[in-house]
């Protein structure tokens, strides 16, 4: 049996396909899939915006309180320049990290669009996407957000102590607990991210790289 015979056999499927599709169910499945995708993209985008905005707003409120305290009790507020610097630096860091995540996501989207449509391009696009997910910078940016979220309650606690004219040492245990919580949340985040990279991203990437090798192997 030569190639022409095989092709003739193959083409018998065109008259009698091995499958058929339920168009109503397919239409529903497409709608459902699109709605889910849009929902996840919206959630992801809003989480970044909300975290940055929420933290910046919190820090602004914090700063406003301290400025108010300085004005109402100019000689007895116990505040130093560091107390003012902390919320300013925190708010700027939150805005910068939020913006950096947004810019990086845009850059990655453009990079993915630059690939063509062949199988090789598709594989390279998927690998680029996985690299992005696994990249240190991406993880670092997330880590910065976690750290900032941890710093916020500590800073507030210190500020409240100062505002109430108490010695910070009296409430030291609170700072210790909050610091431990902060360290725990950072450690848990690192562990979860590493686990995700090892368990999901790297095996997926290895499979795609193997396919690329297969494509090159003759």
């Amino acid at each position: 049996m030569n190639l022409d015979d095989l092709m003739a056999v193959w083409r018998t499927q065109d008259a009698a396909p091995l499958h058929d599709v339920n168009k109503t169910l397919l239409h529903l499945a497409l709608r459902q899939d699109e709605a889910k995708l849009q929902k996840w993209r919206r959630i992801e985008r809003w989480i970044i915006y909300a975290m940055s905005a929420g933290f910046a707003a919190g820090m602004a409120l914090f700063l406003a309180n301290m400025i108010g305290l300085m004005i109402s009790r100019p000689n007895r507020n116990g505040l130093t320049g560091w107390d003012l610097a902390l919320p300013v630096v925190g708010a700027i860091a939150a805005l910068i990290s939020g913006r950096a995540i947004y810019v990086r996501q845009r850059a990655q989207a453009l990079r993915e669009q630059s690939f063509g449509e062949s199988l090789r391009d598709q594989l390279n696009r998927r690998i680029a996407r996985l690299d992005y997910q696994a990249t240190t910078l991406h993880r670092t940016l997330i880590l910065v957000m976690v750290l900032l979220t941890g710093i916020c309650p500590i800073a507030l606690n210190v500020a409240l102590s100062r505002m109430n004219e108490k010695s910070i040492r009296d409430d030291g245990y609170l700072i210790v607990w909050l610091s431990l919580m902060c360290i725990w949340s950072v450690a848990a985040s690192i562990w979860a991210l590493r686990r995700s990279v090892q368990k999901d991203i790297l095996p997926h990437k290895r499979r795609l790289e193997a396919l690329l090798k297969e494509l090159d192997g003759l």
Partner: protein
Amino acid sequence: MHDSERDRIFGEWLAGHKGILFKVVHAYAFEHADRQDLFQEVAVQVWRSVDAFRGESSVPTWMYRVALNTAIAWTRKEGRHQRGKEQLEVAEGLLTTASAAQRDPRVEWLYHQIAQLKDVDRSVALLLLDGFSYKEIAGIVGLTESNVGVKINRIKSALAGKREEETAL
């Protein structure tokens, strides 16, 4: 592009060339549930690709390209991974399969042989059997024409060898 326009174009593509999707699904997934899953995944990708179609290739070439790209990187696990580890909600009854009596055993034999090939070679075999030229196959898969030629010679030899083996028995 508005969704209704995309639906209309997708409907036309499906009416004219759904056989391409069936062939790809049949060559890359072997269990009924997997075929349902892969078909849904491939259909979704083809539907999404309507916006990107610029008419630089024919519709069957485009559909093959999208379907093969999706199938070759597909596993059930990866499907979940891409959707945030969420189990795909595959519509039961989306894809129906012809009964054994309705199937041509020679076609079944061809699929069985194709299933023995590596993932990329499987794509080349499907395109070859559907009459695509070396140039078209090279464009779809992302290889040079000479490399496609080498792969096709190997596939032909493998198919001919199997046929001879079985005839001798």
